[in-house]
């Protein structure tokens, strides 16, 4: 099965590569002109008696002059296409589109400030050191659009110090989902490097772009691909990654960590029964959840997520903390590692038991 998946991945790469350097000419102005052809000139009406008096030839000459003058006026006013500026037109179209498409919260705050949870994807490392994405759930005010909250956090330090983000404050703005256009639009600021910065590997750059894809898709509850646009046109490269076409979500097992704790978050204070949730993909779905302190493992609890598909499966366990002495612990979720190489896939959270 893996051979077949590898084979398909190679065909995907080959076909995409075969046309990757083809840069079509911009035909937007031609398109606009085609769908809004120059209006026909309608000659002024004349009375039959006037026709009779001046004769057909004279009439034709007058009409000819009127037509010429009128067409000059039309050229002067409209030969640049639509009356609106092209960029403004696209910007307003994107902005308008989004309001109907994003599923953004509309409820007004009542009394206390209501909050909502949203997902943000950060970069960590798998056991081989390859950058992979880990998901953190954050909470923010219900009154602010989910995508805006998620993008803010994408450009901030993650809660878990094991993770990092490639995105700096202010690098991304105006994330808009638009099912009509079949994409999520996002605008990178002029400060976002077009080429891969020194010290950033190609895998790091790919993971950074996928951070945006996964986070925005989660915010908008859609799998639409993400298009980076600036001044009304697709940005051809971001961090050295080709972005001239909408970027689809990367395959789950090639992009995401194979084990990820969803709850609790790093730094949480916990007590009583701790409900731990997460996702994984491992041999027979096996994942072990436990607390660790000074090399000692406590409350080792095996559970099952899933495997054999290109996705992550949810799992959950409840740890009874009633007999655990107060203190700081590392909560570990560890995938089964049948290879015996002692390099299991793990995700951790540092928590404080009260």
């Amino acid at each position, binding site marked *: 099965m893996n051979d077949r998946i*590898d*084979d*398909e991945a*190679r*065909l*995907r*790469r*080959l*076909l*995409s*590569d*075969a*046309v*990757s*350097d*083809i*840069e*079509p*000419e911009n*035909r*937007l102005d*031609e*398109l*606009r002109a*085609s*769908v809004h052809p120059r209006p026909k000139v309608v000659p002024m009406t004349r009375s039959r008696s006037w026709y009779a008096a001046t004769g057909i030839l004279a009439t034709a000459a007058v009409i000819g002059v009127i037509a010429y003058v009128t067409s000059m006026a039309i050229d002067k006013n409209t030969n640049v296409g*639509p009356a609106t500026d092209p960029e403004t*037109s*696209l910007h307003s*179209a*994107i902005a*308008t*589109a989004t309001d*109907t498409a994003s599923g953004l919260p509309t409820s007004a705050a009542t009394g206390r400030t209501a909050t909502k949870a949203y997902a943000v994807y950060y970069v960590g490392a798998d056991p081989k050191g390859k950058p992979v994405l880990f998901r953190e759930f954050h909470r923010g005010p219900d009154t602010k659009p989910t995508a805006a909250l998620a993008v803010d956090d994408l450009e901030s330090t993650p809660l878990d110090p094991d993770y990092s983000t490639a995105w700096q404050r202010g690098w991304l703005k105006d994330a808009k989902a*638009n*099912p*009509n*256009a*079949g*994409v999520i*639009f996002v605008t990178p600021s002029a400060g976002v490097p077009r080429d891969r910065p020194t010290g950033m590997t190609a895998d790091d750059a790919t993971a950074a772009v996928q951070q945006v894809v996964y986070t925005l898709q989660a915010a908008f509850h859609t799998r639409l691909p993400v*298009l980076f*646009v600036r001044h*009304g*046109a*697709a940005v051809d490269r971001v961090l050295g990654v080709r972005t*001239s*076409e*909408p970027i*689809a979500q990367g395959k789950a097992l090639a992009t995401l960590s194979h084990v990820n704790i969803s709850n609790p978050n790093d730094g949480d204070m916990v007590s009583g029964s701790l409900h731990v949730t997460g996702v994984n993909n491992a041999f027979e779905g096996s994942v072990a959840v436990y607390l660790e302190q000074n090399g000692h493992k406590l409350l080792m609890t095996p559970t099952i997520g899933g495997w054999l598909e290109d996705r992550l499966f949810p799992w959950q366990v409840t740890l009874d903390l009633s007999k655990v002495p107060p203190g700081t612990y590392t909560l570990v979720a560890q995938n089964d590692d049948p290879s015996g190489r002692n390099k299991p896939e793990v995700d951790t959270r540092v928590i404080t038991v009260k």
Partner: protein
Amino acid sequence: MAPTRSQASGWSADEALELLYAAHWRQLVRLGVLLVHDVGTAEEIVQDCFIAVHARWNRLHDPDKALAYLRQSVVNRSRSHLRHLSVVRRHADREAPPEPTSGADRTAYDQARRATVLDALRGLPRRQREVLALRYYLDLSEAEIADMLGISRGAVKSHASRGAAALRVVLGAVIEETR
């Protein structure tokens, strides 16, 4: 004249045209190149498809499907173009491959590899080429391809399998290099 709006989406045809162009012009032209093997022809075909979508915008029952409609139009018009070409231009097979745009970091080797892949695609039966382009370039599912081409999922699977096998024979060395 007031812009025509689709009742289902609240979008005018002009807005849809701008958005769809911004998001998909490049990808659709590239899909066209995989199908007809010529950049200029692909641009013409895709441009006509955009005009057709604009003209029919207020009659689209589900504007969310506009992209699917555009893709289907590209496939259909590419097919019509090839049929026409085969009748009036028997020497089409001797046409030069599409001329890639220049780039500072492009190597002759990369160009040769890309031309080889496009040539190999052109050598496939039309249906296999369409299925492979939709499956491996646009990443559509078997169900989506079946719907678009009006064939069964089994037929999609069969065309994909045969097409991929044929490509493996022709592109064996190139595929090996990507391992």
